[in-house]
């Protein structure tokens, strides 16, 4: 139960805190991992709980757009692969909630905040999956962007998060290859299939670029996160790395990037045209095409499951009571 003990107010004077804070920063600077029972500044803990829980919520809400195609997958092989992938994402969510719990937050309170609409999850999951090609694009680009974000997190200063990311990244890179393979199959298929692939790329490309967050000059959290080695690359750096990796893959597929201004500079970087940050802001504010549907689906699952969770708790209690009564005989 040490996660609860961590909830108790930090004792000691401000002077002591200053000493602890400087020791803490020295450990970070020396690339040491911070473990759950170590002292840490309240703001570090808060930042991590926010980031890890947002990540967990993203995995769970992210089950919905892909889950939308499990029952309609076009072959048994694809159906099994998609189901396994969505199941992996649920596993990532559980794993991440557990990492957040090491910081003294409980899964229930984190989930409640998400259901109440108070906690964020990745903006990308507020877009609909309209055709089978969307499943290919999500694997290829959404998981591709997630990997780009998450690989540096494998070296994050907080031990449980870093270790969770190592496992998550392994599975994500498998998903990414799977998504690309779906795209390859579509692009080598009939004209109708290739058009389906292009149309899906057109819809997802810009929202995927927004996954890396606002441009560096507008990012709120980066400074402290960088100092604490939670974040090692800026939003724009990661976005550029992602685009440079992705453009040749699209070329290999024979697809056109839906950005008329995209061109390669002298250093070989592919430079994108302007991103519609107003769209991003609207999606974060709850006005994306699926925000309401996603939250409604999660709320419904939670509400419909309440009697099941109550039953499990009631049964466990009855059982414990019976065992105690037996032991007393």
């Amino acid at each position: 139960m040490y996660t609860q003990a961590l909830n108790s107010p930090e004792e000691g004077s401000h002077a002591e805190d200053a000493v602890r804070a400087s020791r803490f920063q020295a450990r970070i600077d020396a690339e040491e991992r911070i473990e759950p029972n170590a002292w840490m500044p309240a703001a570090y803990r808060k930042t991590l709980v926010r980031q890890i829980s947002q990540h967990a919520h993203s995995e769970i809400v992210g089950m919905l757009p892909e889950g939308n195609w499990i029952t309609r997958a076009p072959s048994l092989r694809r159906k099994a692969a998609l189901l396994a992938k969505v199941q992996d994402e649920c596993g990532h969510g559980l794993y991440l909630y557990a990492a957040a719990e090491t910081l003294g937050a409980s899964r229930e309170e984190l989930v409640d905040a998400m259901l109440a609409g108070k906690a964020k999850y990745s903006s990308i999951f507020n877009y609909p999956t309209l055709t089978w090609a969307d499943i290919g694009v999500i694997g290829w680009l959404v998981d591709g962007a997630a990997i780009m974000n998450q690989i540096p997190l494998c070296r994050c200063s907080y031990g449980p998060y870093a270790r969770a990311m190592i496992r998550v990244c392994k599975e994500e890179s498998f998903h990414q290859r799977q998504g690309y393979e779906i795209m390859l199959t579509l692009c080598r298929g009939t004209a109708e299939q290739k058009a389906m692939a292009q149309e899906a790329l057109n819809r997802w490309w810009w929202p995927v670029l927004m996954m890396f967050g606002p441009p560096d000059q507008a990012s709120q959290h980066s400074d402290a996160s960088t100092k604490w080695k939670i974040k090692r690359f800026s939003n724009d750096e990661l976005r550029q790395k992602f685009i440079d990796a992705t453009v040749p893959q699209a070329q290999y597929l024979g697809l056109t990037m839906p950005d008329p201004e995209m061109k390669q500079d002298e250093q070989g970087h592919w430079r994108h045209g302007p991103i519609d940050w107003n769209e991003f802001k609207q999606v974060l504010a709850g006005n994306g095409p699926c925000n309401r549907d996603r939250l409604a689906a999660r709320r419904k699952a939670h509400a419909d499951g309440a009697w099941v969770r109550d039953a499990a708790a009631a049964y466990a209690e009855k059982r414990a009571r019976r065992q105690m009564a037996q032991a007393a005989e």
Partner: protein
Amino acid sequence: MTAPSITVSETPLVLYTLRRADDALILGHRLSEWCGHAPVLEEDMALSNMALDLIGQARELYGYAAKVEGRDNDEDKLAYLRDVRQYRNLLLVERPNGDFAQTMVRQLFYAAFADLYWRGMMGSTDATLAAVAAKSEKECAYHLRHASEWVIRLGDGTDESHRRAQAAVDDLWAYTGEMFNIDDSERSLIDAGIAIDPTMLLPEWLSIVSHVAREATLTLPENDWMQRGGRDGRHSEHLGHLLSELQYMQRSFPGATW
């Protein structure tokens, strides 16, 4: 343009294999409908896992049915291009998920049967079916344990969960008899040692299910009228809707590779 249904030459062995494959696919499909919507995340994982087991069993069985038939059908054509009247699954497995109690009771009834059935089939004189049986038995043993634990929790949990679990038992009971039916086609395989006689499994199945029901403080219905027809393609209205979803892509894009 839509893809038309295929025809299948249902020799006794092809028909037998399709029946088992259809059971696994349809139940796997039903369980997969829970993915993202389960009462707790752990159940999202467990239900998806069981769906994957069943879809895996279906794929092996369809592959074998296609091979035995020896025409140009394959696992996907058998799954995606047969219409309601050509599907051979039990009525039980096509029942809608309903609430979590309905899903778990359906799972208990089927898994208690499938575990016994595949265990018996491990001795089949048909090497492929014996191998499928060995793998399926391990999976269904877990499905049975999982479903039993939940039915006990729900039956002996709260008043509401008890009421829902009892309603599920009452609703689904009439679909259990079909698991133990055989026809002439299957009789010939039983005589050849390829299949086992499911009627022999009824006493043990009843004993397993009764034990769980007792622990769960649930009552098994006395009504012994049993519905049948799925094995011959006479289904409930639910299957057509399931298939229209399952088959949408293959029907809409004839001949495409995915």
